């Protein structure tokens, strides 16, 4: 049974029909039932990864007696705060396999979920400002090509022709000398990703409860028996946590610690403009990246604020630093007004790679450590968590990302995977 069969389909015809009926026939996209006392599986965290996991539990494994528990509102965490770049240009084979599988899922996601996630594969350009930068990009592009993932280098003339607003002067602090491009990369609508998965999961019968924080675990015989919530204890056979910046806290409640450090990553948008920037453009040396949203706003991001924080607000000094970099790259943007600025608490791991796999508590599984770059991984991260929860075993793609890698020393170092590996 597909989600589409259970839910009234969204289509041009439905739009027309509802237009004629005074928009009276749209039902809610998902129910808000009172949670039951017991489920087969409970997922903590209603961000993209938690909702995607619920969807894949139902779709891939037929597990539909599932509850997603969200402390605030769906996608109100990092999923709704991110700059929505989706790409798979990573260096290590393990990362390439994981992120490219995710990119492929994104390519079919609007259709699969019957929900327009507005995935726009406009290409992501990473600038080089020196011969050494160019060598660094060549290294990643070569590694990707060896793995069969599309990526190529651009000459200075090519990149300036594609992005005419870039400052072409050779005399700036960061002159453009070339770039790398992944043409399949792009941006999507963040809320739509969360909402699309929520609607499709609900269509399979998954329960979703919002404004409901997990405040503790009941652990019996070394296993999680249930989670404590405002509705009382909710029991299940298996649990998954996908709570991003709340992961250290959640782990502490379950009695273990994680190799994570939570810090603030901020983003900002300008006033809306007519279309002027057709790609995602990033400069790691300069510490900023920018794309233009469908509404016309420039969506701007930069590097991490390297101070532990759970404040979810960006430091204005960092804002100024990132904007200075953007203006350096695009002098024409200097007169624009900033419309909004915000921050998210990102759970960074020592090797900039996620943690997927069993936790020290046998029936509790982890999906965390995506840090600054897990929006692109929502389809695959949820699929991997679902696989772990349903089978108790790793999928081949998630196997290298287990917690044990920190003891075995088999790290997957992606420390140089982008401005903030956005």
């Amino acid at each position, binding site marked *: 049974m597909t989600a589409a069969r259970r839910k009234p389909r969204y289509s041009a015809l439905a739009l027309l029909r509802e237009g004629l009926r005074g928009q009276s026939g749209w039902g809610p996209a998902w129910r808000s039932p009172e949670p039951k006392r017991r489920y087969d599986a409970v997922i903590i965290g209603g961000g993209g990864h938690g909702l995607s996991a619920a969807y894949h539990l139902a779709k891939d494994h037929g597990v539909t007696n599932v509850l997603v528990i969200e402390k605030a509102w769906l996608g109100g965490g990092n999923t709704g705060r991110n700059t929505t770049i989706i790409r798979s240009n990573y260096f290590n084979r393990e990362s390439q396999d994981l992120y490219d599988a995710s990119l492929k899922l994104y390519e079919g996601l609007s259709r699969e979920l019957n929900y327009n996630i507005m995935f726009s594969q406009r290409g992501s350009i990473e600038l080089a400002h020196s011969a050494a930068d160019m060598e660094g990009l060549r290294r990643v592009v070569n590694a990707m090509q060896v793995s069969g993932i599309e990526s190529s280098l651009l000459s200075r003339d090519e990149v300036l022709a594609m992005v005419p607003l870039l400052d072409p002067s050779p005399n700036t602090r960061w002159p453009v000398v070339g770039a790398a491009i992944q043409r399949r990369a792009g941006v999507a609508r963040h809320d739509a990703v969360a909402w699309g998965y929520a609607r499709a999961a609900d269509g399979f019968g998954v329960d979703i409860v919002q404004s409901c924080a997990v405040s503790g675990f009941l652990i019996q015989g070394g296993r999680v028996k249930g989670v404590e919530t405002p509705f009382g204890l909710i029991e299940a056979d298996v649990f998954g946590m996908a709570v991003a910046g709340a992961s250290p806290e959640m782990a502490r409640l379950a009695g273990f*610690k994680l*190799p994570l450090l939570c810090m603030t990553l901020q983003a900002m948008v300008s006033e809306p403009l007519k279309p002027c920037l057709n790609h995602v453009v990033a400069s790691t040396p300069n510490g900023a990246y920018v794309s233009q949203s469908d509404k016309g706003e420039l969506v701007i991001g930069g590097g991490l604020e390297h101070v*532990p924080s759970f404040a979810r607000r960006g430091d204005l*000094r*960092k804002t100024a630093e990132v904007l200075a970099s953007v203006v350096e790259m695009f002098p024409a943007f200097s007169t624009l007004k900033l419309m909004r600025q915000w921050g998210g608490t990102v759970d960074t791991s020592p090797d900039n790679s996620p943690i997927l796999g069993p936790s020290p508590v046998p029936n509790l599984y982890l999906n965390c450590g995506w840090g600054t770059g897990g929006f692109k991984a929502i389809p695959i991260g949820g699929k991997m968590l679902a696989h772990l929860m349903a089978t108790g075993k790793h999928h081949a793609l998630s196997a290298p990302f287990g917690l044990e890698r*920190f*003891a075995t*020393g088999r790290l997957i170092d992606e420390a140089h995977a982008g401005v903030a590996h956005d």
Partner: protein
Amino acid sequence: MTNPGPMICPFCGPRDAGEFRYGGDPKAARPAFGSSDAEWAGYLYVRENARGVAKEYWVHSQGCGQWLIAERDTVTHVIQRISEATA
């Protein structure tokens, strides 16, 4: 970087917060030679990462250069206590 507003160096007094840099988690001692891989992993990678008041190393990098230990709230960014880091 933390919240704007001055930070108080025990040596220099109130100074612009941008002069200070976060310097890590004041750690438990290095595991003894022959400790297990898990103990080394804990020492190398696992952070306290408290939500609330945390003990942290800071350095007055653009002032006196002194290493400091701050007790700072990671939610409000308010520093409750700051003193010289002693070995």
